[in-house]
């Protein structure tokens, strides 16, 4: 019966299963057996969790000035398992940002961005940017105090960008003040534009990884052995274990630390203690200690440098072939961001 059905389907959708097996069994280097090399697949899994929980949350969410907050409260307090779905959505976003950051660090410090993998790195940095934007638009949609003032600050930051700032701010906010237009725009970005951009970038990223193969990285104990193992089933199962562990972890976090709902957005009062989500602590602190225009230009310049780093590194290595300067610069930048983040986390103001 099953064979007949398979035959019937294959006649209409002639998929070459042998070819598929060959494609999925791509040999990958032995170092991929280490858990740190699962960090690329982890955000992809978490993104799927985000899409599924996001679609379910969208059944009840209303992106309007008057109803956004109440609809989130309804999801959290009334809808069966709404609190759990919202919490899993929130925690998977936090884990996703953490894993993308860790993956970026791993790729940077192992020099995996070097030729011919420059485009893979560039799509990766764009993925990091899209992930952060998804995080920001996500917490803005809750429309609590943090959402409103976060969006106000973001709109004014956009306005301070030289030349195109005014236009950018108007496009983002959809008027002079945060209002209905802002929420619908953020919703369109969060649930439409950014996820589609994410899918396209993930696709490009994976295609580039398949084209160039996983970067060779040998530990001392396996130098010169050139050992490989098939992606499927070996590495696939490693990723699967990671996925199952994450699902358990997400549920634990959702139950122990459920997503809370702060005070309703009040355009007339900025709360006394306001801080963004932890992943924006470094920009928040940077904005406190430097002038506005400098803070914005330097942050933009930092991300631009990060985006084109493979070419800068190539230039440095052209003149100093054995230079480790990239590692030092990377370590300096990372420690700098870490200091700003911790500073903001512990400081009262």
């Amino acid at each position: 019966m099953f064979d007949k059905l398979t035959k019937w389907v294959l006649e209409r959708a002639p998929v070459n299963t042998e070819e598929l097996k060959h494609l999925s069994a791509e040999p990958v280097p032995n170092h991929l057996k280490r858990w740190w090399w699962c960090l690329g697949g982890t955000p992809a899994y978490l993104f799927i969790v985000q899409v599924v929980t996001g679609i379910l949350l969208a059944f009840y969410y209303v992106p309007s000035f008057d109803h956004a907050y109440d609809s989130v409260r309804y999801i959290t307090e009334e809808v069966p398992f709404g609190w759990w779905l919202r919490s899993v959505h929130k925690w998977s976003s936090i884990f996703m940002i953490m894993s993308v950051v860790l993956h970026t660090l791993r790729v940077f410090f192992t020099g995996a961005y070097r030729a011919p993998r420059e485009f893979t790195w560039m799509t990766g940095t764009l993925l990091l940017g899209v992930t952060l934007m998804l995080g920001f638009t996500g917490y803005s949609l809750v429309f609590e105090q943090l959402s409103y003032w976060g969006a106000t600050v973001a709109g004014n930051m956009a306005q301070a960008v030289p030349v195109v700032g005014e236009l950018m701010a108007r496009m983002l906010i959809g008027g002079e003040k945060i209002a209905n237009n802002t929420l619908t725009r953020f919703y369109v970005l969060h649930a439409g534009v950014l996820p589609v951009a994410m899918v396209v970038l993930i696709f490009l990223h994976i295609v580039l990884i398949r084209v160039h193969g996983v970067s060779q990285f040998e530990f001392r104990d396996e130098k010169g052995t050139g050992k490989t193992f098939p992606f499927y089933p070996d590495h696939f199962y490693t990723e699967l274990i990671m996925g199952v562990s994450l699902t358990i972890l997400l549920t634990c976090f959702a139950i122990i630390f459920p997503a809370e709902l702060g005070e309703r957005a009040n355009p007339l009062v900025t709360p006394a203690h306001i801080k963004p989500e932890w992943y924006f602590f470094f920009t928040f602190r940077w904005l406190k200690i430097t002038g506005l225009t400098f803070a914005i230009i330097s942050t933009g310049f930092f991300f631009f440098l990060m985006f084109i780093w493979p070419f800068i590194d190539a230039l440095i290595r052209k003149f100093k072939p054995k230079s480790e300067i990239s590692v030092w610069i990377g370590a300096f930048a990372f420690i700098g961001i870490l200091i700003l983040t911790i500073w903001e986390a512990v400081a009262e103001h």
Partner: protein
Amino acid sequence: MSEEEHCKIKPEEVTRRDFLKTATMWTAASSLGLALLGSLKFPKPALFPDIPKTFKIGKASDFPVGTEKVFKEKSVVVQSHRDGLCAISLICTHLGCIVKAERKKFDCPCHGTKFDDEGRVVYGPAPKPLEWLKISQLPDGKLEVNIAKSVPLGTKFLFS
């Protein structure tokens, strides 16, 4: 071949197929470009909510010397001094948060800018002092503040 004939530029032969191909490509590209330009204009709202730029604050006698009144709805504080009234905006000049009006100072909760009693930056990242706004008297004697019209820092208005 004479020199004159040699210098003549011979036109490149264009086949009907080539011409149609080029024309189609340019038509498609230009219509797509124009459509894109049109779409870029779309996100700019055609209508903005009409937010009133002025609001009434009462009569001059409502502000005895040495008092101040916060108009929370408009994010403005009106202070009464010996030499007149002044209206100071409570919107931080850094990134638009509402500053907290305390005795003799204003504090921004977002990025920590501290302003003195006249709105000058004492500490923090705000690039400019708080905005001072125009106060005018209406024919019925009542005063109104214009949130769209700023005046130089320190400007005070005397009304009878």
